[in-house]
């Protein structure tokens, strides 16, 4: 605030009557909510890391599991589909920030346009995730079951240490049943993130309808777009780490 004529001294900064962080109440609360959500997601990802390392070589290689792409049957295409999902989410994040920028200029038409793009991006991401889930479930994964077994190195190690009795051979399936947390953590982590994306899409639709109806034009500012934008970028941010820890590492 370059034209701020009030002299702020330390003793009265927090005495009320002004905004010490120079952000609105709603935006500050959104930041604090996102911080708490960061802790929730960190718990899930750290739990995932600890369980994964506790299995050592016994953990399936994600590139041998998530190697499908729509309309490409029987081809081994690891990481391609999930990279596409990342592109979609980053792209929708960019359209969101463009909507915020348009809001600063009070351009109702542009805000509505970019909000619509963001909603489309979010729905595309959710559709991709639904496809990925249905593939994985179709291969016998559930919260209590995982047919993706040990790696070759893991089998040798398992035989050497005599822990193969931890795993049961399933008739008719040419694999040793693998660690159950591989599937259950996948569903919980990506499911929790997907639920956030779904909530974000619902919020975006509400903002879009309000923009078209001219609610923010009458209010004189588009701050609601910024607040929901913060949430949407957070969802994108979480996906960056889910992508890194679940698919890349």
């Amino acid at each position, binding site marked *: *605030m370059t*034209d701020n004529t*009030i002299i702020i001294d330390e003793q009265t900064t927090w005495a009320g*009557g002004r*905004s*010490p*962080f*120079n*952000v*609105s*109440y*709603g935006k*500050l609360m959104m*930041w*604090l909510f996102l*911080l708490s959500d*960061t*802790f929730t997601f*960190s718990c899930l990802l*750290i*739990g995932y*890391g*600890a*369980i994964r*390392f*506790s*299995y050592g070589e016994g953990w399936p290689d994600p*590139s041998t599991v998530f190697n499908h792409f729509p309309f490409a049957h029987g081809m081994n295409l690891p*990481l391609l589909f999930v*990279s596409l999902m*990342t*592109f979609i989410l*980053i792209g929708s*994040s*960019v359209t*969101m*920030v*463009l909507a915020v*920028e348009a809001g*600063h200029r009070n351009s109702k038409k542009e805000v509505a346009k970019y909000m619509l793009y963001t909603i489309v991006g979010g729905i595309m991401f959710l559709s991709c995730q639904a496809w990925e889930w249905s593939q994985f479930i179709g291969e016998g994964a559930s919260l209590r079951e995982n047919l993706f077994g040990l790696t070759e*190195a893991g089998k040798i190690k398992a035989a050497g*240490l005599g*822990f193969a009795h*931890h795993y049961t051979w399933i008739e008719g399936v040419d694999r040793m049943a693998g660690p159950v947390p591989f599937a259950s953590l996948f569903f919980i982590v990506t499911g929790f993130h997907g639920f956030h994306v779904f909530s974000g899409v619902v919020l975006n639709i509400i903002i879009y309808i309000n923009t078209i109806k001219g609610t923010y034009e009458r209010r*004189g*500012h588009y*701050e609601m777009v*910024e607040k929901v*934008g*913060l949430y949407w*970028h*957070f969802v*994108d*941010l979480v996906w*960056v*780490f889910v*992508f*890194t820890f679940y698919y*890349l*590492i």
Partner: protein
Amino acid sequence: MSNAHNNNATENEYIPETYIPHSENHGTKEIWQKFWILLVITIMDFIVYFIKVSPDFKIYKNIFFIIFGIIKAYFIVGTFMHLKNEKTNLIMTVLVPIVFILWFITWMMYEGHALSTY
């Protein structure tokens, strides 16, 4: 709008719940610049993933992925979420509690051995 921008408002006029600070418009140039950076980083992730390394060197690949993840996070939080242009107090309020997460990661990696199933 007038309520939001009137810096000389007396305390009686000030309503914290509806106070909207004046937001500056930085244009779309920086947004697109960061978008291309994020795109290139994701493509580099994709390329590095397919570089075959011996199991001993896989840890360096993982460190590379984590560093790239943090760089992506910096651009998303800094530019897209506009945290870079906020007051230092707000930046610290958001970032300092992350120390607990770092501690949690270190702790769980240390304790992870005890969770080993074999």
